[in-house]
């Protein structure tokens, strides 16, 4: 009994020490197990991408200066985060066997961390309307597989830019007619607390089925609109 109590106290010491630090950790093995779901998904996913995402819990939290690194026994690799907190996840057996940690230079509780699926952007900025519908359907199907998105349907997709970005998003119908989409301020992804992005909603029902969406520059993210 005493021995267990002693062990318990010893174990708490590092935790208390960690609470004082301005950094937080995620067990690489846990992250790996979550991230591998997308890799193993066997249904169509050519329009999708999966990132490891640090999602802010506070709307005033900026991703500026936030660093994520993978710390193993003998290695330390910096992972690049985009402005939405997304990083390409390194699948590594060595890191898994090392029981490595993903370390972020912020206090615990400022982010939720985990897999984040979004629609891939195109370098030419031209998206066939049919492809965007397929992309949204693929994403919804994936969420169903992962046990989310129940009872929702694809209403459209949303292009997000940084606030102040002068980008334009237009819809070109099959007959060549151009319609400019309206922008508003909002979150890059539904449910995000950070709302300060310039977003263009492309609602499928509001446009003809055949056509193209043309973006003047590459958006930060293309998100599904699930309703």
């Amino acid at each position: 009994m005493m021995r267990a109590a002693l062990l318990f106290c010893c174990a708490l010491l590092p935790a208390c020490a960690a609470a004082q630090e301005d950094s937080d950790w995620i067990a690489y093995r846990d992250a790996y197990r979550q991230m591998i779901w997308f890799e193993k998904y066997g249904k169509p996913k050519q329009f999708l991408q999966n990132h490891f995402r640090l999602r802010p819990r506070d709307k005033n939290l900026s991703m500026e200066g936030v660093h994520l690194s993978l710390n193993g026994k003998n290695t330390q690799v910096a992972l690049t985060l985009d402005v939405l907190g997304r990083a390409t996840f390194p699948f590594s057996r060595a890191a898994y066997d090392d029981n490595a940690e993903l370390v972020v230079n912020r206090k615990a509780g400022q982010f939720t961390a985990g897999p984040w699926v979004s629609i891939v952007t195109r370098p030419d900025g031209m998206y066939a309307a049919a492809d965007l519908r397929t992309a949204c359907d693929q994403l919804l199907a994936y969420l169903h597989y992962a046990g989310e998105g129940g009872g929702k349907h694809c209403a459209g997709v949303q292009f997000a830019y940084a606030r102040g970005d002068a980008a334009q998003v237009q819809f070109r119908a099959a007959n060549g007619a151009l319609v400019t989409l309206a922008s508003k301020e909002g979150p890059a992804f539904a449910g995000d607390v950070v709302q300060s992005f310039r977003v263009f909603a492309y609602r499928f029902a509001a446009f003809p089925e055949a056509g193209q969406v043309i973006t003047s520059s590459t958006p930060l993210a293309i998100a599904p609109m699930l309703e």
Partner: protein
Amino acid sequence: MNKLLPLILLPLCGVAQAEDRTPMMPDGSRDMYAGIGLATSNAEAAGENRPVVLRPLLQVEWSNGIFVSSSGVAGLDLSHSGGVEYGPLLMFSNSRDPRDNRRLRGSHPISGSLDAGAFLNYYLGDDARLRTSLVYDTSAHGLRGEAGVQKSWSGLVPHHTFSLSASVTLASDPVMRERYEVSRAAGGARDYRPDGGVAAVAAGANWNWALSSKWLLTSGVAVTRLGSGPAGSPVVERRTFTTWSSGLAYRF
């Protein structure tokens, strides 16, 4: 059954495997927890004392789907798709002797055995899953089944995971009688012969605290209410009882 400590809660996507047979961990890797814990002894061992004891804590999972746990369970996950796990299961059950305790007078001696069966877990989404298992008890020569539901929350407080579970355990006639039948001729207080049915229903709560990526503190409490068959047996002292466990494990 020899449920010493609840299985350490792995992330719910835990041992699931998907279409292309890629394991949930790198090929050839394993995930192992080893440590020590305090626990009230067996919830199933009605009629026996339930002292607090120090127990080893071990859980290992390999990339080929094999898992073993110090709770007396071993199995192989054969699933080819995410969201579901199934496969063969081995469970160790405790031995018991009528001379162990005054209350057990007139009951059957039980030899510890290795019981074989199968398990099926189904993920409901939102960090909830259904868990079922069916095993053949090789000492009693009968079937024992368990069905339960578990829901966990990991985002509430960083590094803490909470879960709630509820389950029902069913036993066939021979399994029920091996444990709860009493005969006056063998020294029991009175003759008692239960039929198969609900052996117990239980509700539990579990709390895992990851102190670091290596150290995990796991604690659980469960309230068990025995079915009417066991409850009427002279070996059973209390129909409803609480068991708990707490342990510290290192992740290798």
